[in-house]
C-alpha cells in the first residue's frame, strides 16, 4: 500500500518539523520556568532569526555566519523584550502578562513586515539540495532525505546536548534551574534572580533564532512565519509537560509526527488543527503532559 511506503517519508518530515517545534517549546519552557509567564512572542524570535539570516546571506555573508548573526540579533531582541516589557510588569496578573506578550508579538510582527516586506524570502540550504536516498530498492527505496532536514535534526540534537551540559555542568545553568525550582530559595542562596531571568530570555531568544535560521531554507522566511510556529511550540510544550525541557523536545517531536501522519488520514487543510486538537486532548485528560513533572514551584 502506498501509505506504508510513504510512511518513512512522513516520519522524516514529521521529525524535522517536530525538531523545530521542540526548539520553540524549549524556549517557552525556559521563560515559563523563569517568570511563570507564557511568551506569546516566542514565534517572533524564530521569524527574526530567519529573516536576519536571510538578510545577511543576501549581503554575501556565508550561510553559517548568517545564522549565527541571526541568533545574536534575536538574543539581543529577547533581552530587550524582557527589560522593556516583562520586567516592568513582573507583578502583574496572568492575563496582563499574556496580553503584554501578545502585544509584543504584534509589534514585532508589524516591524518585521515593514523591514522585510510581506513576501516570503528564500534562503539557500546549507549544503545543497541533492536528496540523500536512503536505499536503492526495497521498503525504503522511495525515501529520501533533503540535506537541510539532516541539518535541522542534527543541529537540534547538538543544541539539546549543549543545553543539557549547560544546565547540568555549568554554574550559570544550575543557577537558572535553581531560579525555576524556587525563586526565593535561589535568592537566598545568593543567585541574582533578575539577571538569571534576563539570561533565560536571552537563551530562549538564541534558541529561537537558531531554529529560524536552520528552518528558513525549508519553509522560506516570512514576517508571519513565527506566529503559528510559536503557538504549536506552546502546544508541544504542554504535550510534553509544561516546565520540563526534555518534555518540550519530546512533545515537539511527537507533535510533528502526529501532525504529518495525520495528513494521510484527513485532508491536509485540517493539518494545523491537529496540533491544537492534540493540545486540547492533553489539557483535558492529562494536563501535566507526557513527561509531566513541573519544576516550578509557586
Amino acid at each position: 500500500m502506498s501509505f506504508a511506503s510513504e510512511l518513512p517519508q512522513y516520519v522524516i518530515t514529521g521529525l524535522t518539523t517536530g525538531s523545530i517545534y521542540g526548539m520553540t517549546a524549549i524556549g517557552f519552557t525556559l521563560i515559563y520556568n523563569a517568570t511563570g509567564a507564557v511568551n506569546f512572542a516566542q514565534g517572533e524570535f524564530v521569524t527574526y532569526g530567519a529573516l536576519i539570516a536571510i538578510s545577511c546571506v543576501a549581503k554575501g555573508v556565508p550561510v553559517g555566519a548568517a545564522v549565527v548573526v541571526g541568533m545574536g540579533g534575536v538574543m539581543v531582541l529577547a533581552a530587550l523584550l524582557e527589560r522593556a516589557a516583562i520586567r516592568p510588569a513582573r507583578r502583574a496578573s496572568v492575563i496582563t502578562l499574556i496580553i503584554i506578550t501578545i502585544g509584543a508579538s504584534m509589534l514585532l510582527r508589524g516591524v518585521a513586515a515593514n523591514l522585510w516586506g510581506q513576501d516570503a524570502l528564500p534562503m539557500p540550504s546549507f549544503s545543497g539540495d541533492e536528496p540523500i536516498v536512503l536505499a536503492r530498492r526495497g521498503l525504503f527505496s522511495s525515501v529520501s532525505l533533503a540535506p537541510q532536514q539532516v541539518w535541522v535534526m542534527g543541529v537540534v540534537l547538538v543544541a539539546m546536548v549543549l543545553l543539557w551540559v549547560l544546565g547540568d555542568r555549568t554554574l550559570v545553568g544550575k543557577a537558572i534551574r535553581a531560579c525555576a525550582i524556587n525563586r526565593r530559595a535561589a535568592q537566598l542562596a545568593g543567585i541574582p534572580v533578575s539577571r538569571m531571568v534576563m539570561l533565560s530570555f536571552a537563551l530562549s531568544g538564541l534558541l529561537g533564532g537558531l531554529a529560524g535560521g536552520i528552518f528558513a531554507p525549508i519553509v522560506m522566511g516570512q514576517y508571519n512565519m513565527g506566529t503559528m510556529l510559536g503557538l504549536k511550540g506552546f502546544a508541544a510544550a504542554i504535550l510534553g509537560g509544561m516546565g520540563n525541557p526534555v518534555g518540550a523536545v519530546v512533545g515537539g517531536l511527537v507533535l510533528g509526527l502526529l501532525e504529518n501522519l495525520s495528513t494521510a488520514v484527513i485532508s491536509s487543510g485540517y493539518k494545523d488543527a491537529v496540533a491544537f486538537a492534540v493540545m486540547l486532548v492533553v489539557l483535558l485528560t492529562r494536563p501535566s503532559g507526557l513527561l509531566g513533572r513541573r519544576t516550578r514551584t509557586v
Partner: protein
Amino acid sequence: MWFVLLGVALGALPLVMRGEYALGLAVLVGINTIIVLGLNLLMGYAGQVSLGQAAFVGIGAYATAILSAKLGWSPWLGLAAAALLGAAVAGVVGLPLLRLRGHYLAMGTLGFGIIVHIVIVQWESLTAGTVGITQIPPLAMGYVTFGEPIRMYVLVAAAVLVCVVTASNIVDSRVGRAMRAVHGSEVAASTSGVDVQRYKRQVFVLSGALAGLAGGLFAHYQGYISPESFDLSYSISLVVMAVIGGMASIWGAIFGAAAVTLINESLRALLDYREVGFGLLVVLIMIFWPEGVWRGAAGTAERAWSRGGMRPLLGAVSATLGGLAGFLLRPTDASGAQATFLDVITRGATLGELNRELAPLAQRSFAYLLIGVIVGAALGVTVGYFIDQRRRRDVVGMAVGRSV
C-alpha cells in the same frame, strides 16, 4: 438611572454623526460592545480567560447566514438561532475546558478558537470556505428594513442597551456575587457553598450567547461573511477591548469596545505601521494601566494632582483635546475643497470617498494630531501654572489674613 443617560446618549449620537461612515463605525462598536460585555463578565467578574471568543461570534454569524441565506429562514429566527447556538456550543465546550485555570485555560480557549476557524475554512459544503456566504438578507420588521447604517444603528443601540441592563442586573444579583466570589478565590467560594463550576459554566454560556448574537447582527448588517473575520486576531482584539476598558466594569466594556474599534480605524491611516502602532499601544497600556484605561488614568491623575497640582492635569487634558481637534479638523481634501474630517463625520461621506482621502493624507493627519497635542499641552500647562499660582496666593492670603 445611568442607563437612561446611556439611552439618551445613544439616541443623540446619530444627530451629531450623520455620515454613513460614522454610523457604520458606530454599528461595529455596538456589535463589539455586546461581545465584550460577555467577555467582561467572564474575565472580570468570574476571572476566566477566553482567547477564543471569535469562534462563538463566527458560529453565530454562520448559523444565521446559513439559515437565512441558504435555507430561507426569517432573519429574526436566524438571529435567535445564532445566540442559542453560541450558548449551546459554549455549554458543551465549557464543560471540559473550564476545569482548566490560568495559562492552561487561555491556551485551551485559544486552541478551540483556532480549530473552529480552521473548520469554518475547510468545511466548504457547509460554509463555502474562504469564499464566504453572501446575500445574507437584512433584518426587517414590517415595512422597515434594517439595511442602512442608520436603521441598523438603532437596532444595535437598542440591543446594546438591553444587554447592558441585563449584564448590570446579573452583576448585582446573587449570581453576580457568586461570580465575584469565584474570581476572588475559587477555594474560598466553594467553601462558602458556591458551586464554582456551575457559575463558571453559566457565565461562559452567557458570553457565548452574547457573542453568537453579535455575530448574527454582524452577518445581517454586512450582508456577507467570510472566515477571516473570525480568526485569532479578532479574538485577541476582543480580549484587548475587555482589558483596556477595565475588566470588572460594564462601562469599561463599552469604553474598551469603542476605544479599540476607533483606534483600529484611525490607525488605518498609518497603513503599514498599523500593527506596530496597535501592538505598541497595547503593551504600553498593559504595563502602565493594567487595570484598564479608566481606573489607570484616574489613578495617574490623582497622583499627578497631589504632586503637581493643576499643571499636569490640565496639560494632559488639553493636550488630548488639542490632539483630537487637530485630528478631526485637519483638511481631508488635498486638492481644494477644505472639508475637515469633522465635517465628513457630521455631514456624511461614503466610505469609498473617505478611504481615498485617508490614504494620501496619512502623514498629514498625524502631523496635525501632534501639533494639536503640543499646542494643547503648552496651553494647558501654562493655564494650570497660573491657576496654581492663584491657589497658592489664596492659601497664603488665608493664612496671613486669618491668622490672629
